[in-house]
C-alpha cells in the first residue's frame, strides 16, 4: 500500500466514525418498534397454542392486550433511549398496570394503580388458578384466575425475550422464553402445539433474530454483509425452508401425530394413575398407546368381571372427583358389609385373585361387592357407603397380590322390574340432584326416560345412549373442547353425541338422579382379555387368567334398586359387556362378546380373541394372546422400519459412493479431468474445507494442501503431488487452449497434453489424496466424511431449496413486472388529468 493519502489514518477513522454514530442515533427510531413487533408476534403466536389448554377463545383478548401493551412500553422507552435497566423495569411496571386494569379494576386507584386490596384479590385469584391447575383437566374453563396467571406469565415472557434479545444481546437465546410457553400445550394438549401456534411462534422468533441482526446496535453484531440483499434473502430463505420443513415433514411422515410425549399425554413422572383424581387420568389412560399399568386377575366368575376401584357421587361443580369420606372409613380387617340387605334369591359368590402389577393407585381394584380381601400389605380402609378400598398414607396398589371374595346377586330383568319400592337407607349423597343442571340434560332425561318403574327408566336411558345416534370417540371430546367431566361437559356431550365412557357413565348417572334413581359413577376396568395362562387358587383349583391395562380403563354407572343393591349398567357403546339383566329381550345381543375395539389405535391393538387360545403361551409383556399370524405383522413392521432407518442413515454414504464411481469411470475420457477435479472438491468439502465461490482452483488447492494434508516432503508427498497434478490438469482443461483446436498446445514444451488425465490416473490420484486426508483427520471428521458427507448434504439442501428459490424468483419477477407497469399507468393517469383539465 502506498503512503499516498496525506491524512493520517487515525484522523480519517475518527472523522468517519462520527457520522456513523449520528446515523446510528437516527436509526434508533425504527429499531425498537420492529423488535417489539417481532416479540409481540412471537409471544402472542405462542399463546395461540394455548387454545385447547384453555377452552374457547374468550381468554385471548386479555392476553393479547397484555402482550401488546408490555411490548409497546418497552419499545417506547427504548425509542427515547432510556437506560436498559429502566426499560426492563418499565416493562414490569406496565405489566403490573395492565394486569391491574384488566383484573383488579375495582380495588385499584385510578383503575391501574394496585392497592392493598389488590393484593388480597390477587391472592384469591392465584389460589383459584392453582385449584384449576391441580384439579381440572385440559381444556379448562377460562376462569378469571387462570387467565390472570396466563396473562402475567406471557407478559413476563415478553420482558424475558426482550431482555435476552436487546440489552443482553443474545437474541438466539430468547427462544427459551418462547419455548417455555410452548412446553405447556406440548405436554397437555393431545394435538400438541398445533400448526398456527407453532408457525407464528417460529415466524416471530425469526423476526426477532432478523431485527437484532439488521439493526444491530453495536458493531459487535453487525457484519458488513448483514445488510446486503443477498444475505437477507438467504436468511429469509433458510428460515422459511426450515419452518416449512418442520410443518410439512410431520404431515408427510406417519407417526408424528401419535406418540407418547407430544401427543397430549400428560407428563406424569409418578405413573399413569396417581390417584389424585382418577377422572382426570381416565381419558389419558385410554389414549395411552401402550398398555401400561397391566393388571392380571384370575376369577371363577362365569360372566365377565368389572374391576372397580372408586366411585364418584358428587356431581356438583366443574370437576368431579371421588369423595373419600375419610371420617367414616373403617380399617380393612374382617368382613366388608355393604350396609344393605339384598333380597335376591340367589347370591353368587366369586373368588378373584388379583395381581396389581405396576398399577399404582391408592384405590384398590376389586370386583363388586367385596366381602373380604386377603393378602394385602400396608394399611387399607374401606368406605361403608361405596365399598371402595383405599390405602391410607402412602399405601398404594403397586405390586399387591391379593384375593378378593365378592358376592353379587344373580340379577334378572324380572327381578329388577319388580323392584319399584321407594328407596330407603341410602345416604343422601347418592340421591342429591346437583344444582344448575344444564337444560339439555334435564330435557333429555325427561323425554328419554318416560314413565314407569325405575328399571324401565334406566333401561330407556341406557338404550338411548347406546343408540346409533351416539358414537364412541376418544378424540372428539378433545377436539370439541369438552374432554373431562362436569355438568357443562355433559351438556356438550349430549349435544355432540360423541365421547367416551366417562361421558356416557356420567350422562346416565345424572339423568338417573333426575329421574329419582340413586346413582353413582364407578371407575375401574372393563373386562379384560384372557391371557391363556391359569392361576391356581387355594380351594378353587386352576382359574383362567385375564389381563387388563390402561386401555381398558372404564367408567360405568351404578344405580340403586331397593332390595337389590347397587346394580351396574353399561351405557357406553362398544365398550365393556352389557349385563344380562340390562339387555333388551328383543335385541339378541351377545353378552359375552368382549367388544373392546376402541378406534384410537387400529393397528397397534391386536384383535381380541373371543376364545382362549389353544396354545397356552406364557404371556409376553403386554402382548396379549394374539395368534402368531397376527403377531408377525408388528415384527415385520419393526423389521421394515429398522431396515428403512438403516437405509436412510446409509443413504448419504451410498449416494456419495455412487457419485464417486460415476466420476472416476467417466463415459468420455475427455471428461476425466474435470470430473476428477469435482471429486477433489467434494473430498475437500467432506473433510471440512468447502471451496469458496470466489476461489480459483489454484487457491483452493493451495488451501487444501495447507490445511488438510501433512508434510509435503514426508508421508503425504504423493497426496501433494496428486493434488498439484489434478489442479494443473483441471486448469489446463478449463482455461487452456481447447484440445485439438490448436496443435501447438499438444506439442507445447514437452508438457503432456490434456489427454494425459485418463480415468485410471485420476482415480489413483484421488485415492492417494483420500488416504492422506483420512490419515490427517480426526475421528469425528472421518466419521462425518464417511456417513454424512457435507458435499451430499449440501446438494440435498440445495435440491430441497430449489422449489422455494424458483417460487421466490417467480414472485420477484412478477413483482418487478407489476412495478414496471405501474409507473406507466400513473403517467397515463396524469396525462388524462391534464387533458381533462385543459378540456374543462
Amino acid at each position, binding site marked *: *500500500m*502506498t*503512503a*499516498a*493519502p*496525506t491524512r493520517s*489514518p487515525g484522523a*480519517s*477513522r475518527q*472523522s*468517519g466514525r462520527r*457520522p*456513523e454514530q449520528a446515523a446510528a442515533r437516527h436509526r434508533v427510531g425504527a429499531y425498537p418498534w420492529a423488535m417489539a413487533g417481532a416479540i409481540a408476534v412471537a409471544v402472542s403466536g405462542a399463546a395461540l397454542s394455548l387454545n385447547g389448554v384453555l377452552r374457547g377463545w374468550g381468554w385471548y383478548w386479555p392476553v393479547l392486550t397484555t402482550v401488546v401493551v408490555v411490548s409497546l412500553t418497552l419499545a417506547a422507552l427504548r425509542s427515547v433511549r432510556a437506560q436498559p435497566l429502566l426499560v426492563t423495569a418499565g416493562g414490569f411496571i406496565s405489566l403490573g398496570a395492565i394486569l391491574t386494569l384488566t383484573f383488579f379494576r375495582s380495588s385499584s386507584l385510578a383503575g391501574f394503580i394496585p392497592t392493598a386490596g389488590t393484593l388480597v384479590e390477587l391472592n384469591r385469584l392465584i389460589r383459584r388458578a392453582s385449584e384449576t391447575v391441580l384439579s381440572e383437566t385440559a381444556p379448562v374453563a377460562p376462569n378469571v384466575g387462570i387467565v390472570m396467571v396466563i396473562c402475567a406469565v406471557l407478559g413476563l415472557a415478553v420482558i424475558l425475550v426482550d431482555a435476552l434479545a436487546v440489552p443482553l444481546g443474545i437474541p438466539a437465546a430468547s427462544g427459551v422464553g418462547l419455548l417455555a410457553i410452548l412446553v405447556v400445550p406440548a405436554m397437555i394438549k393431545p394435538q400438541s402445539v398445533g400448526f398456527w401456534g407453532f408457525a407464528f411462534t417460529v415466524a416471530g422468533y425469526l423476526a426477532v433474530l432478523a431485527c437484532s441482526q439488521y439493526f444491530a446496535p453495536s458493531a459487535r453484531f453487525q457484519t458488513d*454483509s448483514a445488510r*446486503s*440483499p*443477498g444475505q437477507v*434473502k438467504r436468511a429469509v430463505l433458510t428460515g422459511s425452508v426450515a419452518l416449512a420443513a418442520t410443518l410439512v415433514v410431520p404431515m408427510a411422515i406417519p407417526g408424528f401425530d401419535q406418540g407418547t410425549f407430544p401427543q397430549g399425554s400428560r407428563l406424569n413422572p409418578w405413573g399413569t394413575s396417581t390417584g389424585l383424581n382418577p377422572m382426570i387420568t381416565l381419558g389419558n389412560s385410554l389414549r395411552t398407546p401402550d398398555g401400561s399399568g397391566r393388571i392380571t386377575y384370575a376369577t371363577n366368575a362365569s360372566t365377565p368381571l368389572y374391576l372397580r376401584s372408586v366411585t364418584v357421587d358428587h356431581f356438583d361443580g366443574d370437576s368431579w372427583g371421588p369423595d373419600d369420606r375419610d371420617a367414616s372409613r373403617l380399617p380393612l380387617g374382617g368382613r366388608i358389609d355393604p350396609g344393605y340387605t339384598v333380597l335376591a334369591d340367589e347370591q353368587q359368590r366369586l373368588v378373584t385373585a388379583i395381581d396389581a402389577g405396576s398399577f399404582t393407585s391408592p384405590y384398590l381394584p376389586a370386583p363388586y361387592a367385596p366381602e373380604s380381601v386377603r393378602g394385602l400389605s400396608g394399611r387399607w380402609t374401606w368406605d361403608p357407603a361405596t365399598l371402595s378400598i383405599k390405602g391410607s398414607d402412602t399405601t398404594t396398589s403397586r405390586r399387591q397380590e391379593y384375593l378378593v371374595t365378592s358376592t353379587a346377586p344373580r340379577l334378572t330383568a324380572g327381578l329388577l322390574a319388580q323392584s319399584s319400592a321407594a328407596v330407603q337407607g341410602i345416604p343422601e349423597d347418592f340421591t342429591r340432584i346437583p344444582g344448575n343442571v344444564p337444560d339439555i340434560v334435564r330435557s333429555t332425561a325427561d323425554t328419554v326416560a318416560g314413565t314407569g318403574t325405575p328399571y324401565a327408566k334406566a333401561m330407556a336411558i341406557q338404550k338411548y345412549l347406546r343408540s346409533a345416534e351416539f358414537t364412541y370417540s376418544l378424540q372428539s371430546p378433545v377436539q370439541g373442547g369438552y374432554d373431562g367431566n362436569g355438568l357443562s361437559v355433559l351438556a356438550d356431550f349430549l349435544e355432540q353425541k360423541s365421547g367416551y365412557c366417562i361421558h356416557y357413565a356420567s350422562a346416565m348417572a345424572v339423568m338417573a338422579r333426575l329421574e329419582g334413581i340413586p346413582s353413582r359413577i364407578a371407575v375401574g376396568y372393563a373386562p379384560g382379555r384372557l391371557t391363556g395362562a391359569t392361576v391356581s387358587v387355594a380351594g378353587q383349583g386352576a382359574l383362567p387368567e385375564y389381563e387388563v391395562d390402561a386401555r381398558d380403563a372404564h367408567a360405568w354407572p351404578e344405580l340403586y334398586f331397593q332390595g337389590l343393591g347397587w346394580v351396574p349398567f353399561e351405557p357406553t357403546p362398544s365398550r365393556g359387556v352389557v349385563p344380562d339383566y340390562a339387555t333388551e329381550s328383543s335385541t339378541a345381543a351377545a353378552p359375552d362378546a368382549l367388544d373392546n375395539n376402541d378406534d384410537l389405535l387400529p393397528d397397534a391393538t391386536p384383535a381380541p380373541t373371543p376364545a382362549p387360545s389353544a396354545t397356552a403361551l406364557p404371556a409376553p409383556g403386554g402382548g396379549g394372546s394374539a395368534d402368531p399370524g397376527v403377531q408377525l405383522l408388528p415384527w415385520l413392521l419393526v423389521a421394515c422400519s429398522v431396515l428403512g432407518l438403516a437405509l436412510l442413515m446409509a443413504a448419504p454414504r451410498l449416494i456419495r459412493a455412487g457419485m464417486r464411481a460415476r466420476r472416476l469411470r467417466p463415459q468420455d475420457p475427455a471428461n476425466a479431468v*474435470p470430473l476428477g*477435479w*469435482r471429486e477433489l*472438491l467434494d473430498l475437500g468439502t467432506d473433510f471440512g474445507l468447502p*471451496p469458496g*465461490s*470466489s*476461489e*480459483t*482452483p*489454484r*487457491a483452493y488447492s493451495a488451501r487444501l494442501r495447507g490445511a488438510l494434508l501433512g508434510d509435503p516432503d514426508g508421508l503425504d508427498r504423493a497426496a501433494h503431488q496428486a493434488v498439484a497434478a489434478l489442479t494443473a490438469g*483441471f*486448469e*489446463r*482443461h*478449463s*482455461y*487452456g*487452449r481447447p484440445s485439438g483446436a*490448436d496443435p*501447438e*498446445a499438444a506439442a*507445447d*514444451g514437452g508438457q503432456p497434453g490434456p489427454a494425459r488425465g485418463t480415468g485410471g490416473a485420476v482415480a489413483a490420484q484421488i485415492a492417494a489424496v483420500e488416504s492422506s486426508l483420512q490419515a490427517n483427520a480426526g475421528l469425528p471428521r472421518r466419521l462425518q466424511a464417511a456417513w454424512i458427507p457435507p458435499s451430499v448434504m449440501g446438494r440435498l439442501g440445495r435440491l430441497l431449496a430449489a422449489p422455494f*428459490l424458483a417460487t*421466490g*424468483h417467480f414472485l420477484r419477477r412478477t413483482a418487478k413486472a407489476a412495478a414496471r407497469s405501474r409507473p406507466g399507468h400513473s403517467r397515463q393517469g396524469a396525462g388524462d388529468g391534464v387533458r381533462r383539465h385543459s378540456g374543462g
Partner: protein
Amino acid sequence: MESHRRTANDVSAANRTLAGLADPVSHLNGHRPAAMDAEGFHAATQRILSSVNTVIDGKSDAARLALTVLLAQGHLLLEDVPGVGKTLLAKTLARTIDCTVNRIQFTPDLLPSDVTGVSIYNQSSRLFEFRPGAVFANIVIGDEINRASAKTQSALLECMEEHQVTVDGTSYRLDEPFMVVATQNPIEMEGTYPLPEAQRDRFMARISMGYPDKDAEIEMLETHQATSPLTRVSAVVTSAEVAAMITTVQQVYVSKAVKEYTVSLGRATRESPLLRLGASPRSLLQLLRAAKATAALDARDFVLPDDVVHVAEAVLAHRIILDRKAAGSGETPHSVLRGILSRLPVTSEGAGTGTRNAAPAGRTAAPVTGLSRNQ
C-alpha cells in the same frame, strides 16, 4: 562508458544520439517479430530478474511486476516516498535490456517540445527538420512526473497510448518496445500537478516500492557503500529478444471463462457502492494483457483467473476512485479491490462451479449477486 552516456540526464545529448531513429510512421509498418519458444522465454526472464535483483535488494516482486508491464507493452508508474529506489529500479530494468534509454527529469518549466521534439528550420537546406525529443527511446524514465505542468504531462499522453509523436502535422512512430516508467512522489505535493485521471489511466500499473526489510537493508548498506551497483549491470537481453518475448506474451491463450471473469471484475467495480469511479474498458484490456504477461512469466501458455487476481491490484488500484463515505471510513482502493475479489465467483468452463448462486438481485445488489445475473 557508452551506456553511461546514454543514461545521462541530458535531453539534448539523447536527442542527438537518437536522431536517426526518428522516422515517420509509414516506414515501420508491418513488422512483427517471431515469438520466442518457452525455454528461451523462461531463460531470458530469469536473466533479467536475477540481474535486477543484484541491484535492488529484497524487491523481487516489484521487479517482476515491472517486467510484467514491460512484456505486456504497458507503462509503469512508480509511486513512493523519496529514497526507496524508484529511479534505481527503472534504471536497472532499462540497463538489463540492450536498448535505448532516456531519462527526463520533470520540472515545472519543462516544455512539451522538450519531450516530443521540435521542428527546426535548417538554414542550409531551407527545410524544417525534426529534432526528436527525449521520448524517442525504448525505455523512457520520467522522474517526478507530477512536477511538470499539465501541458507537458499531456504531451506524454499521445506518445504512451499511440506509440507515436505528432509534430507539425507529421506523425513519427516510436520504436518498439516502448515503455514509460514514471516515478511520482506522493508527499510534498505543494507546487505539483497531480496526474489527472485520464493520464493515470494510461499507465498499466502503479506500484509502490515500500521499504526493504531489515536484512535487505543491512545488505544494501554493505554492498552499496563504495560504488553504485548500477555500474555492474550489463545488458542481458537484446531489444530484439524483448520484442520476441512480447510476441510470445501476445500469443498466450485466454479462455472465455477468464474473459468473463475479467469483465465481471470490471463490472463489479462499477457497481460497487464504495466506488465513485470503476474500472474503464481500457483498464480491463490492460488488466488482461498484464495477466497474459504474468502467465507467460509463470511458464504457462494460458491465463488463469489467478493471473488476473495477481495483477488486479497493481493495474486497477490507481484508476478507481473511492466514494467519499468509503474513503471516510478508512477504505483504500486496495482494500475495496480485495473485498470485491474475495466475493467474485470464479467461473470455469464446463465445470459449472460458478453458477451456484445464480439468483439475481435487486438494483442495489452487492457485486457478487449483481454479477451472476450477467452470466
